[in-house]
């Protein structure tokens, strides 16, 4: 068991705290057009350290924060937390449960969290890198991007193999 939970609050259209628990095997996420499904995939990319806003259909940090609707005011912060079961020691840390988090504020500031404590962005990357999960291109395949690897130039495709090494 690797991924236990994903928690979103104030991230894009998820204004209220929303928790997804994951079991082994296959989990399907379904719903009407515009209901927020791809925002969940963006949240996973974001919390794993993604810095390219255009790959999350956004331009700035503020676009990640709930912008408000006709009946609900905008929020000042977005937070996403990924909780892993680490009993097999897959992540190079002592803990049996590891939570990785990211927060962003309207000021543009981003914070990174490891088991609730603030860490540097660098630390998050090292953690994922050490576990072979470096901002991997095949951990999250965004909508419409399934065949992106086919459109890359040959030199650009090399990055896919380096990550897998």
């Amino acid at each position, binding site marked *: 068991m*690797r*991924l236990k939970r994903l928690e979103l609050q104030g991230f*894009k*259209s*998820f*204004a*209220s705290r*929303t928790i*997804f628990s*994951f*079991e*082994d*095997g*296959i*989990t*399907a*996420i*379904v*719903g*009407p057009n*515009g*209901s*927020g*499904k*791809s*925002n*969940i*995939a963006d949240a*996973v990319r974001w919390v794993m350290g993604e810095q390219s806003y255009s790959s999350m259909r956004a331009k700035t940090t503020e676009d990640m924060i*709930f912008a408000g*609707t*006709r*009946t*609900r005011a905008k929020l000042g912060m977005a937070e996403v937390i990924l909780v892993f079961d680490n009993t097999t020691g*897959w992540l190079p840390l002592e803990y049996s449960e590891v939570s990785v988090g990211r927060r962003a504020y309207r000021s543009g500031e981003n914070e990174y969290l490891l088991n609730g404590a603030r860490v540097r962005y660098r630390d998050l990357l090292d953690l994922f890198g050490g576990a*072979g*999960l470096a901002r991997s291109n*095949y*951990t*999250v*395949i*965004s*909508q*419409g991007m*399934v*065949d*992106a*690897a*086919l459109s890359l130039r*040959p*030199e*650009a*495709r*090399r990055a*896919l*193999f*380096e*990550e*897998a*090494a």
Partner: protein
Amino acid sequence: VEHEMLATFKQVRQWFSTYFNMLFSGGSASLYLTDPEHPSDSGVDISARPPGKRTTSLSMLSGGERSLTAVALIFSLLQAHPVPFCFLDEVDAALDEANIFRFRDLLRSHASDTQFIIITHNRRTIEIAQTIYGIAMGEQGISQVVSLKVDG
């Protein structure tokens, strides 16, 4: 590093041709290093030939053939270097019914090593999930979980 990269490349190439053949029920596909002398600087070329056809350049593949070829590549990377979880957002959108069944089989065969979270509108894909989350926009324009179905 160069040695590792080459070993991984060979493994992915092996699986890519196996999975392509499985997904297309025939045909053949391969990966090539554009500069085999210097693997860690080399680019990677892809060739794909659906059954009965001549080797086409990737640009002549149909929408569904491109998706299926890409799926073969994604699963060969997963096979060579498994990751604990994988999010797939409507990767089955261009596939016809027969290809969705083949895609499902491949997904299921990897589901014991990797947790898959798949966003889809396809009934056939939803059928094989153990857990289903239903998302909806509430009146306030806010996304929320409206239903959850967990098998057994």
